């Protein structure tokens, strides 16, 4: 059975096994020039909000005043607001918002389904990851990239500064789509490995047989701020099949005999759209920023849309 599965999935595997030269083309000079443009544009779009620091809810030794609280023994006298004591006779301690570096985690789906359709989804995912990572690095954020399928298969150590973008490129080049998708288990591993919370950008087609919700919830419940970049290929909904066929899942190999009719294709297209809407509804309901990235749209345009949509950087 395994042999049969390998044989029938051979075309997909062949498509996945592209040459290094082809992979390198992903991040060529043209791509890098566009990244620089994006970095400049992003500064203008966010007009001063783009800073190297990120205010957190954590109160601490920052500069920005946040609140007062009653003095408690052991507090630093330097933070006692004497003006308030002079006017109201109460000892209050000034609280400041603690400032810390933003950690951005890019979680790139490296399952087989990402290679479906001439690797377009996977290429788009890597381009978007590289572009957003560059913007993050340029803003002196801490950028981490992990590749996942049914487990965390690769991790680029946390880095910062836009000079490290080539390290990002090299890492993304090493990623190969293979295996199945298990977002929940993978995210469980991810959150366990990364104690420093931050923005978790999930770049995936979200084709998880166990359900995409588990993975996103795992991030939410562990205090990460998930951002869903849903990679979509409309061709997957516009199939040109006809007649009696045996369909099989390119990840799991699950087979099913189907008689494809135009009506069925129409329903298939509708179901695919519903699935996408389901993902979007889920994200909106949980205030998780969601963005659908079409493989046919140039990545730089997509990145700009991401900026405009907001939520990626605050």
């Amino acid at each position, binding site marked *: 059975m395994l042999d049969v599965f390998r044989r*029938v*999935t051979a*075309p*997909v595997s062949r498509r996945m096994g592209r040459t290094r030269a082809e992979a390198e083309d992903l991040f060529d000079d043209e791509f890098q020039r566009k990244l620089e443009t994006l970095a400049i544009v992003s500064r203008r779009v966010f007009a001063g909000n783009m800073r190297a620091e990120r205010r957190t809810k954590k109160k601490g030794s920052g500069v920005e005043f946040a609140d007062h609280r009653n003095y408690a023994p052991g507090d630093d006298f330097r933070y006692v607001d004497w003006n308030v004591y002079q006017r109201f006779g109460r000892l209050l301690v000034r609280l400041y918002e603690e400032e810390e570096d933003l950690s951005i985690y890019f979680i790139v789906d490296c399952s087989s*389904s990402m290679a*479906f*359709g001439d690797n377009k989804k996977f290429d788009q995912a890597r381009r978007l990851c590289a572009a957003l990572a560059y913007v993050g690095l340029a803003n002196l954020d801490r950028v981490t990239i992990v590749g996942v399928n049914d487990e965390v298969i690769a991790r680029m150590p946390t880095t910062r500064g836009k000079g490290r973008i080539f390290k990002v490129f090299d890492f993304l080049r090493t990623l190969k789509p293979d295996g199945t998708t298990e977002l929940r288990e993978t995210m469980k591993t991810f959150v366990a490995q990364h104690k420093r919370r931050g923005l978790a950008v999930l770049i995936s*087609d979200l*084709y998880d*047989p166990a359900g995409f919700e588990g993975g996103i919830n795992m991030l939410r419940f562990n205090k990460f701020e998930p951002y869903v970049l849903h990679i979509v*290929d409309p061709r*997957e909904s516009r*199939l040109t*099949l*006809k*007649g*009696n*066929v*045996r*369909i*099989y*899942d*390119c*990840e*799991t190999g*699950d*087979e*099913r*005999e*189907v*008689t*494809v*009719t135009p009506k*069925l294709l129409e*329903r*298939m297209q509708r*179901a*695919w759209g519903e*699935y996408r809407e389901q993902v979007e509804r889920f994200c909106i309901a949980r205030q998780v920023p969601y963005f659908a990235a079409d493989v046919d749209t140039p990545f730089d345009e997509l990145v700009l849309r991401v900026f405009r949509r907001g939520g990626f950087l605050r």
Partner: protein
Amino acid sequence: MFLAGLPLATLLTIGAAAGALVLVFYILKLRRRPVAVPFSPIWERILRDKEATTLFSQLKRILSLLLQLLLLTLMLLALGDPRLRAIVTGGRNVVVLVDASASMKATDEKPSRLDAAKAEVRKLVTGLGGSDRLLIARMDAALTPLSTMTGEIPDLQKAVDEISATDTRADLRRGLSFGLDSLRGLSKPEIIVVSDGALGDVTEAARGLDLGGVELTFVPIGKSGKNVAITEFSVRRYPLDKSRYEVMLEVTNTNAEPANVELTLLGDGEVVDLTRLALGPNERLPRFYKDLAGASRTLEARIRLADGSADALPSDDHAYALMPERRRSRVLVVTPGNTYLEAALLLDEYLDVTLIPPAKYPPSDAYDVTIFDGVAPPLAKHTGSALYLAVPEKGGPVATGKRIEMFGFDTWDKKSPIVRFTALGDIQVAHGYALKPEQGDRVIGASDLGPILVAGRRAGRKFVALGFDPRESDFVLRVAWPLFVLNTINDFVEEDTGYVSSFRTGDVWQIPAPSAAEIATLEDPSGHKRRVPVKEGRAVYLGDQAGFYKLSVEGEPEPFTTMFAANLADLEESRIEPKRELSLAGKTAIAPAGFTPGVRRELWLYLLGAVLIVSVLEWVTYHRRITV
């Protein structure tokens, strides 16, 4: 209903094998092609609802098998050629006799009458009903069926294409007999004669034939009949001067209008004589060319209208003749001495005569003719044919009977070439012997007392035996004597000094050939060679083409080759005025009816049409993925 094509058992066998094959292919086709999808749970969602339609899907797949089996069944039925028994037995059975005689070569119909006739027959064939059957036969000197009695149009069209005209007259009697025999016992019999009407004496042709219930119809061909013809052409060498010859020919004007004709005589392709002749209406004008000299071997006469226009039948504007070959015959005379015989032999300068006494026979050299004078030694093989004078009692080719005295030739065969130009009636013989001819011998001359001149063959060689010594009669004093000797020699060496009337086309020719041969090769005027049988020294062949022929025999002791000419020379065929009606046995043949091109009632055609439709249906349903 019955099957006219493949029998039912064969069809069932083919059907079983092909059906099994279809099933195997169908089962193989059921293996679905694998298609990868990125996320099967989406399919699972929609297929949950789809389950309800699975049965319909399976039905559609069975539809594919059913279509294929239907296709197979229709093809098998078409192969079986099913026919309704009632229709077959009710159809017409027609014999078409197509006149292919020389007159059908006339060009008043363009390009020829025969082509017009073929066009008419094609119309009949295409107008054949589905249950009708037709047989096409070519009618010339012989009758040649070109098809079977069939309703298959392609076969009949092919038969029509094969019709070609010959230089012979049409034998209507033979054609009618054939037609009646072919139609005996068949329903709705009909004979259609397609002809220009130049069929000779049709009343005589139909004499004794009972047309009975056979319908006779006639398709007239031809428009006009302007024609002049060479109706006779003969040539001969002079018996005593074979370097010279004379020609007799006859030119006929078959029209009611006078005609001026230019007659050309050619020898070996060179013009020997050119004459203008004025022919009155329907005049037959004989013409002699006497005392012609030359070494020409082939003679050809041509006529054409003096005004340069062409007549309607070019094939009778030529006539051919071949001169008897002039060659020196080697004659051996075995005699103790015979002045009269030697004197007679001196008259022909083309004889090479050798005299030997009886004791020196046989000589070592070969001879064409040997004359035994009063002796009959055993005949040596290389000494040719033999003339026996005064056949002795023993050793001769024929036995002698009683001795007879004072007799003469009371009867003789005037047609025999041996006694041609002779007057034997007043010859007186002192004494001799009556001869006893064997079976197959011919008595050339006889007295009241018995046969005295006998001819025949022994061991394949000719002999002539005279029952008395010519010196014991006044035969040697008469002109008949040298003529008898020379005629006999000429007959032995096949040199006929009579008019060489060339062979007539349409007759069965008996061409002289070596008696030992069994097969000869005959090359006709068009250069086509064919093998012909040789029987008793004669090659037998039914000639149908005018011109020069060459007969050759390869074999022992040496190859034999001879040439001869054949001519149409048939006044009836040259009278080409077309006849618009044909009356036989008191009945006038009408034009054939009921041959209208239309829908054929052959089921296999419709079955093939259904096969085509089902094939298209299967193709469409397959490629539209309806049944797969």
